[in-house]
């Protein structure tokens, strides 16, 4: 039985992952929301009024789009006094692959130094 469990595990996980990815794609598949993400990705918290400024959108429309992004896990909100402040959460965009790429790059550098050492 453990074998079966092992075999089923990753499939279920990748199913969940695909569902999450589909949600992220859907959230980003809209020009207004993509523009909001670009603004939020400066790493600062933004209030709805700040996000509305300079656009033709109403506060209600911005709020609606933010909720979609929040649903996909890409935006977090926190209350600051009377206002909600929205922050970008890139976590759904960062998978295992990106982490492996990073560690992999570190190995490339280390192995290049090893090569210099043994071939000199």
């Amino acid at each position, binding site marked *: 039985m453990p074998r079966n469990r092992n075999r089923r595990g990753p499939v279920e996980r990748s199913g969940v992952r695909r569902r999450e990815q589909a949600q992220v794609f859907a959230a980003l598949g809209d020009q207004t929301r993509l523009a909001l993400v670009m603004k939020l990705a400066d790493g600062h918290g933004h209030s709805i009024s700040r996000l509305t400024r300079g656009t033709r959108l109403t506060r209600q429309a911005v709020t609606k789009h933010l909720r979609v992004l929040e649903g996909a896990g890409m935006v977090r909100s926190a209350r600051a006094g009377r206002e909600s402040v929205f922050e970008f959460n890139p976590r759904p965009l960062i998978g295992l692959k990106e982490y492996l790429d990073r560690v992999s790059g570190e190995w490339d550098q280390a192995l290049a130094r*090893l090569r210099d050492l043994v071939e000199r």
Partner: protein
Amino acid sequence: MDNRIEKRIELKAPVSRVCRAITDYREFGEWFRVKLDGPFVAGKLSTGHITYPGYEHVKWEALVQKIEPERLFSFTWSHPRSIEKANYSGDFASDPKTLVEFRLEKTAHGTLLVLTESGFESVPAEWRLEAFRRNDGGWAEQMKNIERFIAR
């Protein structure tokens, strides 16, 4: 998805030379940029500290698994949540660990070194994000990430 890293490089040096560079703690320290407290012993914890500029506060701790002369050298080491000075709290006992293996093979021109690192499933998603913030301009990097994500 493949949860492991594999690197294959051919080195123009005899197996014995490559083996020494990997298993002698002083030579290992030179290319890995770590100051080790003593020789590697199978089954024993190897300790020291990183000498990479800016990361001298990071401890080196690895549990040596196997030392098979001129064939295999392996150890497990930990992936701390953050290695930035302000947030560093490396704890070998509780941090998630991966297995690093160096395999050596004689070739016509020298040595084939196959490096693998496996066990990344145990590194939590939040920690991976922390590692992603390691470099400066993390947010610019983030945007590229979004582009890549959208493109795939």
